[in-house]
């Protein structure tokens, strides 16, 4: 097992390098550049040129690529062109809110989606199953911006129960850290529901179909024939075998935890990686775009390894040599 993990981690290196090359090329090939933002007739072309030189934009692409790779490997992600400070400082305050939002919504999706999927499978074609299926279809098809606006209209404007925007009210003086956390959770409640809706539905559908397949297997019939309680049959024998596709799903979700939720963050005015990614792309703030995408690529690679290891934990039949 250990040898397998080490081998997998070593395999990441060439793949990651390949990704970085492609990433750099895509950004290089996209039209426009950071200097396109300097729209001021008083700024003479030679001044723009001097500024581009200071931002290191005048070197040929190959030189810039190697400079960037070299600096990145030493932990220096460069300077943001829009915010004029190190990329790490730009991104650091964005990671917390994005991570909080996506883990909360993932938690919500698992806590609601998986049990609902089990119920839906064990009570196939009953009223419960049908209504859950309808709910999941709505959840998958509902555009998140529309759902967000509906929630805002109802809960924030009409009922005044939740705040309209932001991660906190700067004028709120929290007596202690728990009150401050509660205050922020209150701000994150609606965004969590919006972001969690789609994934709840996805988790439910996966669990349902995977459970249905398992429930019909011979060993489940055997378990029932042994006289085991239905609960034990479903949750110990069936669910454990049905969980593998869900782990795959979870593996895909880990990078998404940090990629930020572009639409949700924008509508609720939350500072996060999704929102800053969009701003960076619109501004062509190359160092930020590169840093975020490189980070996501690395996370995706690592999470596939984690998912593979989890398979082995969930299913003793899977062994790595």
């Amino acid at each position, binding site marked *: 097992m250990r040898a397998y993990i080490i081998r997998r981690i070593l395999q990441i290196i060439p793949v990651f390098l390949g990704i970085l090359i492609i990433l750099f090329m895509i950004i290089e090939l996209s*039209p*426009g*550049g950071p*200097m*396109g*933002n*300097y*729209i*001021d*007739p*008083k*700024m*003479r*072309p030679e*001044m*723009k*040129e*001097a*500024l581009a030189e*200071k*931002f290191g934009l005048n070197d040929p692409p190959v030189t810039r690529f190697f400079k960037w790779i070299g600096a990145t490997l030493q932990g220096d992600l460069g300077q943001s062109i*829009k*915010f*004029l*400070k190190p990329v790490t400082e*730009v991104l650091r*305050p*964005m990671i917390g809110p994005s991570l909080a939002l996506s883990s909360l919504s993932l938690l919500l999706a698992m806590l609601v989606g998986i049990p609902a999927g089990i119920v839906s499978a064990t009570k196939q074609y009953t009223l419960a199953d049908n209504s859950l299926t309808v709910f999941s279809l709505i959840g998958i098809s509902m555009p998140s911006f529309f759902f967000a*606006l509906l929630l*805002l*209209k109802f809960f*924030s*404007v009409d009922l*005044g129960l939740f705040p*309209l*925007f*932001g*991660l*906190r009210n*700067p*004028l709120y003086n929290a007596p202690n850290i728990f009150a401050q956390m509660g205050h922020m959770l209150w701000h994150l409640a609606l965004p969590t529901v919006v972001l969690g809706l789609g994934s709840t539905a996805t988790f439910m559908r996966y669990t349902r179909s995977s459970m249905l397949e398992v429930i019909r297997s011979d060993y489940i019939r055997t378990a029932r024939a042994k006289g085991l309680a239905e609960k034990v049959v479903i949750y110990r024998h069936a669910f454990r075998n049905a969980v593998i596709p869900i782990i795959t799903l979870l593996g895909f979700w880990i990078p998404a935890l940090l990629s930020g939720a572009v639409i949700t963050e*924008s*509508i*609720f*005015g939350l*500072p*996060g990686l999704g*929102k*800053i990614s969009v*701003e960076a792309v*619109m*501004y*062509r703030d190359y160092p930020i775009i590169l840093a975020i995408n490189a980070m996501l690529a690395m996370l995706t690679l690592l999470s596939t390894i984690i998912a593979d290891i989890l398979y082995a934990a969930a299913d003793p039949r899977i062994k790595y040599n």
Partner: protein
Amino acid sequence: MLKKAKRIVALSLTLLMLLVVLSGCQGGQGDKILLFGTTGIDGNFASIMASNVYDSYVATLIFDFLIDNDAEGMYYGDIASYELSNGNRTYTFTLKDGIKFSDGQPLTSADVAFTYKTIGHPDYNGPRAYAVAGLVGYADYNSGASSDFAGIKVIDEKTIAFTFEEASPANIETFLYGIMPEHYYGFNTWSEFLALNEKPMGSGKFILEEYRPMEFVRLAANTDYWDRSKRVKIGGILMSEVPEESLLDAFATGALHVAQPQSNQDNVNAYRDMDGVTPQIILGNGYTFLCFNTLQPTLNDARVRQALMYGVDRVAFIEAVYGDMATVGLAPISPASWAFPDSGINDYAFDMDKAAALFAEAGWVKGSDGILEKDGVKMSINWLVYTDVAWPGRLAEMAYDSWGQLGVDLKIELMDFNTVAARTMDAPMDEKMNFDLYTMGFSLSIDPDPTGALFDYDAYTEGGFNASGYYNARSQELITLGKQEFDQGRRTEIYHEWARLMNEELPTVIVAYRNEIWAVSDNVKGMNISTYQTWVQNIHEITID
């Protein structure tokens, strides 16, 4: 009877006392926070680094300025008085008494010199280098050849002189940057300076309390502001980033006092209908434009460009996109400016017959496929449209229909703003012919000098702002005369003639002058915004109920 009267008197007295007590509670403005909605703060708060409008508001609140302008756009000395000498090339500023930074240190002419030298510093990477580029000795100082900036001379603690290479009334706009304390911002390396970008300190009416990127900026009143007559009455300002979708609801729920919503009729109506909020509508200092690539064989004849303008119904376009929130563009000068000509300007009112006649006059006739043709060249043109905002697409769609009837084969290419800039103004010289039309919006400075802008042939370069390639000797001559003329009357005449010439020649068409909407809560008093004055300039007059 008497008893009853007594009781009434007693009751009234009690009520009166209660009122006095209550009003006593709300008497002070010191705890009132102005809630301002923004859409993007970058954190470049050092006065010489601010590039987006919200960062500039923060800088204006935190720093003091040598000059300010009135509602008519006339400049006057603010924390200093000034006089011109040396053939109008030298501005000598004398600082007022008692100016001090919020840490208590006095503001001296050394701080003024430091501020402007920093803009000219070899490592400076902000967007304002042009502000000092016209000063004597800029090139030597900027290249590092000289450690002395010859054009900036500190005379004594309160007096400082700036000398320009060439005299121009537009030079005054050099002095629009807040004065930064040298003892705080002084640096050995540029990254030391940038590290203070998010922690501004100045001599202004406010002090930065807290900044959270992409969330908010919190400012507290500088209760020790040196000019007592201009101390602010409110206690502070909270500028929060509010998503466009929630702006209206934020006002409805009382979460905001002031914001600038997108300018369109729906928004005006919504804010007009809202209780407790009054929209202020002002003429924005800027315009949207449609640029013709005048070097293309299809577009090099002014009559063709005029025909195209007669052939698009701009009144209907403005009605559809802006409602009452814009007017038809006439000349490349804001109608709010003294330089704007009141007469002799053609508005190119929609007239398909005139358009067809002009095409015919210019020698363009419809071929067998219905497309206009001249000397084997087809009237086939492309229009670069960015989709970041809706208006360029709407205008292009309307033009597509009516120009189609005239026999123009229009191809609309959709892209983002940055790509349009890259393919037009920023395109290398050998790629300047890859477009025919593009649309964009510019904001203007107060001085009408158009040097370096859309119509200046010297700006037809890679990265220059004249992408039309248009050259006209008289236009160039007028631009030069205009920036050298100190007599206001003669200068006005020069710009009138120039505006009429551009309106006739149409190398670039001014599409519309847009209004700005400012949603202001009725609780806020004294908020006077105008074309040339932002809400931050009169902040000391504002109170909140």
